[in-house]
């Protein structure tokens, strides 16, 4: 989907379906790098796309790629989850993702969750970082965004993102796995299918 078409996904079901098809897997993987429960993961996936629909009319291409924009929203939704009780969140949900899970779906979500175990470990280790550093580092190291995309997702300047990324890596040196000395950053911590 081109950036120019993106605002339409808020009201055009065909456009939304195209965007959803492109990104639903990536959104689920984003979620399971942070939460380990398949039902919660389903809820958050639904919430993220609802937030996307709400935010689509105000998307401007100059503010980042659709992926960067999407991950900025996803991050906000998942962060908000930690600040609210589960019962309260579900009481207000327009679409409860967990209601749509059949046993096969739970199994597939659990596979994603298992594949992301290392990512969740790393995510937990990031508590040691300052908030700004953590935000950038997560998007680059866990979600495989480029530093420029991460900057756009967070609404900060690219140079700011690079500085924070460097600080984060320095702080976390003991926790990271580098594949060789020449690679300046760790691989994303999950299996790809």
């Amino acid at each position: 989907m081109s950036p120019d078409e993106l605002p339409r996904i808020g009201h055009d079901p065909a456009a939304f379906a195209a965007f959803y098809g492109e990104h639903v897997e990536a959104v689920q993987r984003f979620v399971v790098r942070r939460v380990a429960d398949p039902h919660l993961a389903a809820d958050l996936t639904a919430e993220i796309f609802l937030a996307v629909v709400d935010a689509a009319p105000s998307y401007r291409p100059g503010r980042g790629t659709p992926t960067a924009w999407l991950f900025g929203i996803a991050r906000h939704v998942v962060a908000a989850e930690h600040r609210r009780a589960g019962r309260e969140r579900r009481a207000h949900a327009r679409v409860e993702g967990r209601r749509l899970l059949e046993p096969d779906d739970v199994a597939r979500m659990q596979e994603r969750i298992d594949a992301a175990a290392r990512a969740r470990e790393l995510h937990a280790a990031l508590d040691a970082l300052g908030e700004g550093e953590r935000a950038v580092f997560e998007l680059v190291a866990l979600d495989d965004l480029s530093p420029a995309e991460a900057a756009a997702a967070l609404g900060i300047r690219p140079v700011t993102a690079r500085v924070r990324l460097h600080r984060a890596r320095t702080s976390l040196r003991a926790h990271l796995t580098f594949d060789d000395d020449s690679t300046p950053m760790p691989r994303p911590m999950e299996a790809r299918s």
Partner: protein
Amino acid sequence: MTSTHRFEERLLEELSAVVAARPAPGPAASVPTARRRVVPRGRLAVAGGAVTAAVAAVAVFASSGDHTTAAYAVTPQPSGAVTVTIRSLADADGLQRALDDAGLPAVVDYRADGGGGVGCAAAPGGGAVTGGTTAGGPTTTRHEESGHAEAGPTLTQSGPALPRPGAGRVRMSTSVRMRPDGSVTFSIDPGKLAAGQKVFITTSTGALTSIAIAVGETRPAPCPAP
């Protein structure tokens, strides 16, 4: 309707229904046009700290995630009034811009004791009416979390219109209602505001339950300590 076998397909069906129910953007779409940013210098007295967003630089929109959970909604009504619904205290800047764009000059400051706590209609700040939600902490908190279907309390406060030399005098009642989902809603008619008057949206405790609305030229002072 045949059942679909995968979570992703069922979720798409439900989300598509949400999207289909949304209106296509019309002339009142969210693209802001020329913004009226009037700061009446010398007439805007600030209590206890700067007015944060009156002359703020352009803020980043959805890419920073601030608008994503619909912290607020500003809806023009056929009557000319503007209905404002606030669900969370995120993005004061965005709400202020949205109100300005809707013809309702506003100052939104959610910080604790930004001014305008309940019962402070008598504070100096121009002839104004303050509508505040009940600052009954435990009761209101339980109300938010339990999600009861009952209608929220409706509180209408008409403060005194304070005569002040040179100041506009407005007598207006504004009911601030808290809904079962915990959001706060009120309506104001921009046409009833005198020139130079703004709507001040503040909290006294930094929580949504203490939100207060005041109309005047100058910002209401925080409540004096009891």
